[in-house]
C-alpha cells in the first residue's frame, strides 16, 4: 500500500506541532523518520493512524483520501513504544485481537495466533499473562499483534527504545526480517542511526518535511 501525507497541519493550544508536513512512502518501502523530541513524529503517526484528527491536510492510502475514514477502517497497524498490550487478556488473546475484530472464529484465531507467536520466537506463550513477559517478549507480542492482521501500512513509534543493547540489536534484525518477509510498507520513528540502517530503505528528517 502506498502512503501519501499531504500538507498535514496539527495545532495544539496555539502551538504548531506539524506545519504542512508532506511525505510519501512507496508500497513495500520501509522509511525511517528522524527528529528531535517534541518535533511531532508521534503526532504524525497518530494522524496517519487516524487516532488524531489534523487541523488541515490529507492522508492518502493507495490514491484514496482516508482523512475522514475512522481508524478501524484504515488498515493501518501501529506498534507503540510502550507496546500497549491489553493487560486483561492473555498473550494469545492479545495477538488474536485484530482477528476477533474482523469476525474470525475462535478456533481459527487461536491457530493463527499460535503460529504468529512461533514466528516471533514465543511458541507456547498463548496462555501467559502479559505482565509476566520480559521487555523483549512484550515487544515481540506487540509486533505479532500488529502484523497478524496484515495491515496495509505499519507504523512503528520507537519500537526498540528502552531495550538493552544486545536485545535491541537482535530485535532490530528480527524486525527487519519480519517486515521484509511480509512485504510491509512501514514508517519507523527512531533516534538510532544504526537501527535505521538495519531496518530502513531510506530515512527522512521530520523537520525537512514541513513548510
Amino acid at each position, binding site marked *: 500500500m502506498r502512503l501519501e501525507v499531504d500538507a498535514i497541519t496539527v495545532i495544539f493550544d496555539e502551538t504548531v506541532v506539524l506545519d504542512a508536513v508532506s511525505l510519501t512512502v512507496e508500497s513495500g518501502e520501509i522509511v525511517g523518520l528522524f527528529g528531535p523530541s517534541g518535533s511531532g513524529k508521534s503526532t504524525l503517526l497518530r494522524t496517519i493512524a487516524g487516532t488524531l484528527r489534523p487541523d488541515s491536510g490529507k492522508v492518502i492510502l493507495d490514491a484514496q483520501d482516508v482523512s475522514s475514514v475512522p481508524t478501524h477502517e484504515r488498515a*493501518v497497524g501501529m506498534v507503540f513504544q510502550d507496546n500497549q498490550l491489553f493487560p486483561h487478556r492473555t498473550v494469545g488473546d492479545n495477538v488474536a485481537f485484530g482477528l476477533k475484530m474482523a469476525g474470525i472464529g475462535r478456533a481459527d484465531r487461536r491457530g493463527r495466533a499460535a503460529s504468529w507467536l512461533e514466528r516471533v520466537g514465543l511458541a507456547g506463550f498463548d496462555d501467559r499473562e502479559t*505482565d509476566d513477559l520480559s521487555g523483549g517478549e512484550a515487544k515481540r507480542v506487540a509486533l505479532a499483534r500488529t502484523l497478524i492482521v496484515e495491515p496495509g501500512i505499519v507504523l512503528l513509534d520507537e519500537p526498540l527504545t528502552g531495550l538493552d543493547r544486545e536485545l535491541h540489536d537482535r530485535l532490530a534484525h528480527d524486525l527487519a526480517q519480519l517486515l521484509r518477509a511480509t512485504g510491509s510498507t512501514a514508517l519507523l520513528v527512531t533516534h538510532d542511526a544504526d537501527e535505521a540502517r538495519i531496518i530502513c530503505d531510506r530515512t527522512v528528517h521530520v523537520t525537512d518535511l514541513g513548510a
Partner: protein
Amino acid sequence: MNPLPRTLVTALAAVPALGLVVFYFWPLTTLLVEAIDGRSVSDALTRHQTWDVVWFTTWQALVSTALTIAVGLAPAYLIARYEFVGRRQLVAVLTALFVLPTVVMGAAMLALLPDSFDRTVWTVIAAHVLFNLAIVVRVIGTMWEHLPIDMEGAAATLGATRWQVFREISLPLLRPTIVGAAAIVFLFAFTSFGVIRILAAPGTRTIEVEVWRRATQLGDIGGAAVLSLLQLAVLGLVVLWTSTAQRRYGRPIDVRVHARRRRARGRRERSVVAVISGLTFAVALTPLVALTIRSFSTPSGWSTTAWRTLGRSEVRPGIRIGVDPVAALGQSVQTAAWATTFAVVVGGLASLAIVAARRSGRLLDIGLMLPVGTSAVTIGFGMLITFDTPPTDWRAAWWLVPVGHALIAVPFVVRTTNGVLQAIDPRLSDAAATLGASPTRAWRAVVVPYLWRPLMVGAGLAAAISLGEFGATSFLSRSGDETLPIVIEKLLGRTGSLLQAQGYALATVLAIATITIALMIERAGDTAAIPGRRGTRRSDGRY
C-alpha cells in the same frame, strides 16, 4: 523513624478509643442484646410487611445503582478525556449535588414536580441518580483519565470500532472501579432515608425508614432493632462482595503514562462534547433552580413572603406552625460548630495515634471507620435506647446530637488527615534526630505542623455533614431543639403553600451553606501540598 514513647501514643489514642466504645460499640451492643429477643426476631421475620420493605429497598437500590452508572459513564468519559469550556464548573456542580443534604435533595426534586404529580418510586430513583452522579463521574472519570489513551488507539488500529474499543478494552479495565463506585451508590440508595421521607408517597418505605417508623411512631423497639440488624448484614455482604470482585477483576495497569486531556477536534466531536456537557449541566442544575424558584412562588404570584415570614412562628394571627425556622437555623449552626469541634479534636488525635502506632493503629483506624458503614438511623436509634437511664440518661443533654454527628464525621477527618501524615517523608524525622532532637521533639517539629491544613479540610467536611445530617438527628433531636433538616421535612410535609415555600426557602439556605463549604474544601484541597517527598503530592492523590 524513631518510635515515639508508648505513653504518648496511648494518650493520643485514649480519647478516640473511649469515644468509639461509649458512643458506638455500647449503643450497638445494647441494640443487639436488649432490644432483640426470640419473639421480636420471629415476629419481624414472619411479618409479610418486613419482606415487602426488604424487597422494595433492594430493588430500588439496584435500579438506582444501574441507572446512575449508565447515566454517569458519558460525563465521566467527557471529563476524563476532554478539555472544554465549563469543565471545572461541571465537576463543581456535580460535587455540589453530592454534598447536598438528603432532605435538600428531596426538596429539590419535590420542587421540580408539579403539585398534582403522583409521587412515584421513580421520583425517588431519579433523586438517587442525581445525588450519586458525582460519585460515578469522579471515581470512574479519574480512573478513565489514567487509562492509556494509546491502548484505545491500539485497539482501533486493530479494527475495533468505538463501541468495540469501549466493550473490549475500556470497560474491562474500568470494571474494578465501576464495581467500587456501584457499591458506594448501592449503599447510599439502600440506606436512603431523607430522600424517601420527603419525596416518597406514604407507605413507600426503605428498611431505614421502617426502622425509624417502628421505633418512633409504633414503639416497636424490638422490630426496629431486628430490621437494623438485617440491614447491617446486607451492608456487610455488599462490602465483602465488592472487595472480592475488585480483587478478581483487578489488573495492574501502567498508569505512568498519563493520558492528556485534549480539546475536541472536528465538528462531530465538538458537538458530542457540547451535547453531553450541556445535558449534564441541565440535569444537575434544574432541581437547584427549581428549589430556589419555589421559595418565591405563592398562589398569588411571585413574592418574598416565605422568606420574610421565616422569623415568625405565627403564619397568621393565632395559627402557629409548631416549628421555628430561624431558631432551627441557629440550632443547626450551633450543633455544627460543636460537632465540628468534637470531630476535629477526636479525628486529629486519632490520626496522630494511627500514624505513630503503625500496626496497632490499624485497629483504631478500622474501628473509627465502622460508623460510616453503619446507617445513621441505626446509630441514632442505638444511642436513643442506650442513654435513657441514669446516670447515663443523656437524652436531654445538649451535646448528644453533636456527638452523634461527630461519630459520623470523624472517619472523614481521619481519612483526610491520615493521607497527609502518611505522605510525610520519614527521613525528615531521621534528619531531625541526627540533629539531636528526641523522638517526641522531632515528631513535634516534623509531623505536627502538617496536621493543620488537612484538619481544616476535615473541619469543612464535618461541618457540611453535621448541617445536613438527618437520620441520626431524627432520633436524637427533641422538640424545640430541631435542626434545619428536621424543620425542612416538617414544613414540606404540611399542606399550605406558604409553609411549603418556607420549607423550600430553608432548603435553599442549607443548600447554599453546604455548597459554599464544599467549594472551600475543594480550593483548600487543591492547594494542600506536602513537601518532603519527591514531587508534590496533593490531597486528592494526584501528583
